[in-house]
């Protein structure tokens, strides 16, 4: 009889878990919720200004511009209320701007790093200066965004850039053994022209596959096992759902940019060799003069630390800090420990240099 009495409870429990699982897997979390306004647009790109919450007289003087990668949405910087880097920074008194590259269409397949760095960024910076009222500004570049910000800082050192923060920056491609993406995109095995001839742009699905295939078991199995184990913990489920929403919302990369990323950088390491040119201008990282902080995630399997170290040595900045932190490529900024380690460190470093 006991068995019969328990069975309905067990069934109800199983049903409830199944409902939670279905919801987590099939619904999108509300991410990027911090209030903001669009202050500039060009093609698919948008420049947002987050509405300040600290009175003007208590704010840091130098505005902060966030630049994320080209193949993911920048929502990871503002993942969910209570767990958002953007929210943290505006509460610390920064005037925060975000450059969202948008999703390129086929008509954008000719866009190159040259365009993003020397057409879009200077225009967005001009608007930021006009809106903020200050000539100086800080830049934070993450992942491919760090390539863009590094190139910008090297090509436009007199443009008012005071502070440069590079997060998990893939800049040095010389250590082929340590960089798995480097192996996959080796010119012997990977023909970028065939992909671009077929699709025009690098498809988002292929980018997502590439990122997940670096750690296949964790991404395709472990991730879901973790969800299953924690279905009764609403906090963990909501955090999982927010991250899942972001991870599965990739965007394609403009074909010509992808070609440069593979041929110029992954295959020929032109940036660190000092032979990379954008619109005829050589990108020389020694010309970077802004105060520089390089953040390295020690457990980063996408951008191993060897990719970010050399820029730190080569950059011409007098004020430099190399900050190593345990964690992965995304985890250091969006993981559970980010609000206790990475964000306060960035705030402390930047605050001293934003007066």
């Amino acid at each position, binding site marked *: 009889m006991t068995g019969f009495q328990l069975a309905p409870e067990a069934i109800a429990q199983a049903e409830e878990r199944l409902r939670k699982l279905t919801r987590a897997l099939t619904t999108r979390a509300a991410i990027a919720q911090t209030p903001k306004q669009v202050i500039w647009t060009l093609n698919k790109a948008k420049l947002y200004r987050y509405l300040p919450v600290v009175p003007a007289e208590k704010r840091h003087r130098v505005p902060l511009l966030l630049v994320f990668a080209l193949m993911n949405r920048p929502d990871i910087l503002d993942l969910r209320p209570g767990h958002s880097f953007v929210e943290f920074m505006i509460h610390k008194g920064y005037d925060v701007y975000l450059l969202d590259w948008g999703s390129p269409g086929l008509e*954008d397949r000719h866009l190159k790093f040259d365009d993003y760095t020397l057409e879009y960024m200077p225009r967005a910076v001009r608007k930021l200066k006009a809106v903020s009222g200050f000539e100086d500004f800080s830049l934070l570049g993450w992942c491919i965004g760090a390539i863009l910000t590094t190139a910008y800082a090297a090509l436009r050192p007199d443009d008012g850039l005071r502070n440069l923060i590079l997060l998990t920056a893939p800049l040095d491609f010389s250590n082929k053994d340590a960089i798995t993406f480097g*192996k996959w995109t080796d010119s012997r095995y990977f023909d970028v022209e065939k992909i671009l001839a077929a699709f025009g742009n690098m498809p988002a699905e292929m980018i997502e596959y590439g990122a997940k295939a670096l750690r296949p078991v964790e991404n395709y199995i472990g991730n879901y096992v973790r969800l299953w184990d924690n279905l009764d913990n609403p906090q963990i489920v909501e955090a999982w759902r927010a991250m899942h929403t972001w991870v599965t919302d990739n965007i394609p990369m403009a074909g010509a940019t992808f070609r440069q990323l593979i041929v110029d950088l992954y295959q020929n390491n032109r940036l660190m060799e000092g032979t990379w040119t954008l619109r005829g201008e050589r990108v020389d990282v020694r010309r970077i003069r802004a105060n520089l902080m390089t953040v390295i995630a020690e457990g980063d399997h996408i951008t191993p630390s060897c990719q970010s170290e050399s820029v730190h040595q080569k950059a011409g900045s007098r004020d430099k800090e190399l900050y190593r932190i345990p964690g992965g490529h995304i985890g250091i900024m969006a993981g559970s420990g980010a609000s206790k380690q990475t964000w306060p460190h960035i705030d402390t470093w930047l605050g001293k240099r934003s007066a």
Partner: protein
Amino acid sequence: MSDKPESGSKPFDPLEAWKNMRDASLEAWAKTMTEAVNTDAYARTTGVMLDTYLAASAPFREALQKSMVQALQQLGLPTRADFESLAERMSNLEMRLDDMDAKLDQFAQPRAARSKPKKAKSA
């Protein structure tokens, strides 16, 4: 036998033991796979697979594209190329507008004044 476990010892939970075993095997599997994908052999294999897929699908893609263009033209509808050309023109226009916006900003806030911090705008 008492129903209560002796103090300091936990009752045997078969589910917990299974979970531990599962986690250990997943961890070992993850390590093996991470090492496997970081090899030249994996890079070569995926390269061959990708090339084969692209080569095999190319005739179908091209045929589909041609027939689509023909159908659209016969119906008097714009093709993808028309939209692309229009989008490029729009982007050029946007840039011209942005240049004008920059000039207006300069006109409204002469450089001398801009070198001093402006009164911050309220949210």
